[in-house]
């Protein structure tokens, strides 16, 4: 069995094509479509499983996860600001990206676990939803302090009414209300095609990541180092938390992946409008050009091993 899921080969193809400046790109409408399918699929899957859980039992886990989403950007900020000598707005914006999560990375981790037949708590998409937002609030506060002029409404609108949350949450609700039997008729599209859709999505992500290489070169070594070190640290924290919350090995690996992943859909959009002085090229080249490739190529197997390790040690 290869070290990584064959699905990341599509990412590598996109990356290679992008670096070679091949005449290849998915039409924007298709990229949108694939994103919508992924978000709905993940939400629906989570919702169906959520229906089987006693909701009360999840509450403490949910609180702990939100706490992690607040602490991660707070921890990243000083590193970016002082070790990286970044401007305040840039440091805050990047911190927000890394405190939040990446749906694509999560999907690859799910595919990875499925490929290895590792079970996990199927309600984990709930954590995905929960982790989207807190880091954005923290990031805005870090950038502007407690400022009366902060366009909170704009930021809130961008996040709460952004595609990611609406479709994840919408999927969760539909899955929850409809239940396993109700979802059956749409499984062929949302579940059977999931991996294929993810493969195409990764192809495009490779092309996009290749496009970030240029600005990465301009913005120097620090972002590369940060883009690899941060997910490792965050992944370890996430794994630790997963174990403490009593998640299975698979669930622990997924929570580690969520902690380690950096947003490139919801957070950039929100930050662009609420902290406009932050340079989006910096956060995106770190998140898309370094951390995303690192996570799907090397990170996820690592977090999985880590989860196994902790569970073996911790019993």
């Amino acid at each position, binding site marked *: 069995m290869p070290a990584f899921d064959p699905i990341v080969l599509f990412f590598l193809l996109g990356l290679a094509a992008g670096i070679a400046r091949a005449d290849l790109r998915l039409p924007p409408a298709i990229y949108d479509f694939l994103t919508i399918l992924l978000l709905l699929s993940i939400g629906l899957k989570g919702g169906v499983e959520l229906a089987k859980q006693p909701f009360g039992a999840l509450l403490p886990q949910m609180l702990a996860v939100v706490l992690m989403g607040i602490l991660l950007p707070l921890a990243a900020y000083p590193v970016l600001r002082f070790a990286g000598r970044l401007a305040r707005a840039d440091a805050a914006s990047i911190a927000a990206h890394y405190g939040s999560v990446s749906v694509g990375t999560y999907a690859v981790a799910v595919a990875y676990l499925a490929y290895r037949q590792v079970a996990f708590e199927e309600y984990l998409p709930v954590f995905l939803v929960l982790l989207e937002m807190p880091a954005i609030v923290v990031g805005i506060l870090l950038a502007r302090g407690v400022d009366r002029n902060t366009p909170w409404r704009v930021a809130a609108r961008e996040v709460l009414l952004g595609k990611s949350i609406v479709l994840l949450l919408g999927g969760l609700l539909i899955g929850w209300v409809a239940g396993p039997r109700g979802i059956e008729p749409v499984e062929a599209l949302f579940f059977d095609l999931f991996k294929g859709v993810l493969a195409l999505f990764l192809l495009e992500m490779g092309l996009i990541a290749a496009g970030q290489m240029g600005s990465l070169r301009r913005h120097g070594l620090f972002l590369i180092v940060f883009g690899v070190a941060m997910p490792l640290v965050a992944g370890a924290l996430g794994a630790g938390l997963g174990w403490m919350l009593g998640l299975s090995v698979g669930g622990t690996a997924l929570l580690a992946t969520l902690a380690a992943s950096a947003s490139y859909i919801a957070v950039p959009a929100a930050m662009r409008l609420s902290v406009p*002085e932050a340079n989006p090229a910096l956060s995106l080249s770190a998140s898309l050009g370094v951390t995303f490739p690192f996570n799907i190529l090397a990170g996820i197997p690592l977090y999985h091993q880590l989860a196994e390790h902790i569970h073996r040690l911790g019993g």
Partner: protein
Amino acid sequence: MPLEQRKLLTIVTEAALEHELVGEIERLGAHGHTITDARGKGGRGIRNAGWNLSANIRIEVVCTAETAHAIAAALRQRYYGNYAMILFFSDVEVLRPEKF
């Protein structure tokens, strides 16, 4: 055919601003606008439409010279510093001046 002079204000900027700008333009007195999706390159680098954050839009507003200047002034003040944006004016003739 009686024609009257108006200004055409063309703005090329980040797609992320669409919602906000449309509101701003209306508040400043324009009676309408037209938007097309675009890609391009300028001082802030290549922006080529692959996905929303790097996509451009091209907004056209036909209005009086005063309104055009008011919009331009407002955009310059609020957005020039932090966003990819250009704008330019041209002279156009319209049939129904009361519309613009």
